C-alpha cells in the first residue's frame, strides 16, 4: 500500500520545510540520495530506518526544515 514510500515523502517534506515548494524538492533529493547511499554503511534492509532517524534528528536541530520560515515556537 505504499507505506514505506509515504513515510519517506513525509520525511522529505519535513526536511525541506513544511509549506515550501522548493524545500520539498531539496528534501526529496537529500532523502533519496541518503536512502540509497546509506546502504554502503548500514544493512540494506534498514535503509528506510536511516532516513526516518534523519527526520527525527532534523526536527531536533532545525524544526522549520532547510528552507522553512521560522515560526514562533511556544
Amino acid at each position, binding site marked *: 500500500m505504499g*507505506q514505506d514510500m509515504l*513515510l519517506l515523502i*513525509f*520525511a522529505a517534506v*519535513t526536511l525541506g520545510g*513544511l509549506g515550501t515548494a522548493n524545500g520539498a524538492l531539496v528534501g526529496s533529493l537529500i532523502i533519496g540520495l541518503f536512502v540509497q547511499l546509506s546502504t554502503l554503511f548500514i*544493512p540494506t*534492509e*534498514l535503509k*528506510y*530506518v536511516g532516513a*526516518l*532517524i534523519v*527526520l*527525527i534528528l532534523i*526536527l*531536533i536541530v532545525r*524544526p522549520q526544515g532547510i528552507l522553512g520560515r521560522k*515560526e514562533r*515556537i*511556544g
Partner: protein
Amino acid sequence: MDILFIIQQTLSATLGVNAIIFALAAIGLNMHFGYTGLLNFGQAGFLAIGAYSVAVPVITFGLSLWLALLIGIFNSILFALLLGIPTLRLRADYLAIVTIAAAEIVRQIARSATFNDSLGGSDGITGKFGKEFFDLNPFKQGLTTPILRFNGNDLWVVITGWVLVALITFVMWIMVNSPWGRVMRAIREDEDAVRSLGKNVYLYKMQSLIIGGVIGSIAGFEQHLHFLPTQSSFLEAPPESLHQ
C-alpha cells in the same frame, strides 16, 4: 450447529487477553489524543517497545521477570521522551509524523534479519518465559463451565489483566478529574490560552505522552503472556501480530 460452542468461543474472546491488550492500548491513547489532543499514530510502537523490552532481558539475558517489567517501563518513558523532546514545542502535525516514523523504525528494526540473534527477526522470540508470574497462580486447575473455559495460565492472565484494566481506568479517572486533568483538557481546547495563563504547556504535554506511553507498554507486557500454549510457559509468536 453447536450453539454452546459458539457462545463459549465468543465469551472467551470477549473476556480474553486480546481484549485486555486493546483496552490498555486504548486507555493510553485516550490519555494522548482524548485528553491532551496529542495526535499519536505510533501507539503500536509503544506496545512493541514494552513487549520487546520485557522479552529480550528475560530470554536473551536471563533476568527476572519483575526486573524486566521495570526495564520495560523505563524504556517506554525513554521512548516517549525521544518522541516528545523534538516535537511537542512545534505544531501538532509534527508529533503525528514523528510518532508514525518512530513506530515504523521500531517495527523495521525488530523484524530485521540483522538483529535476528537478539530480537528474533520476524519469527519473534521463543524461550522460557513468565515462570515467576505463573508460579503465583492460585487457580492452577483452570475454569471449566459449559459456556466459558480457560486453562489455568490463561485464567490467571485474564484475571490479573482485567484487575489491571480496572485499576488503571480508576487512576485515570482520578487524574483527569484533578486540577492536573483540567489543565490537560484546556491544552486540548486551546493551547495558547493555557500558555497565557502561565502554565508550562510543554511539560504537561510531555507528562501526558509519558503516562499514555507507559500504559501502552503495559499492554505490550500483556501481549507476551497471551501467546502461551496450553499447560506450558513458553512464548510463541510475539509482537508482529501488532502490526497487521
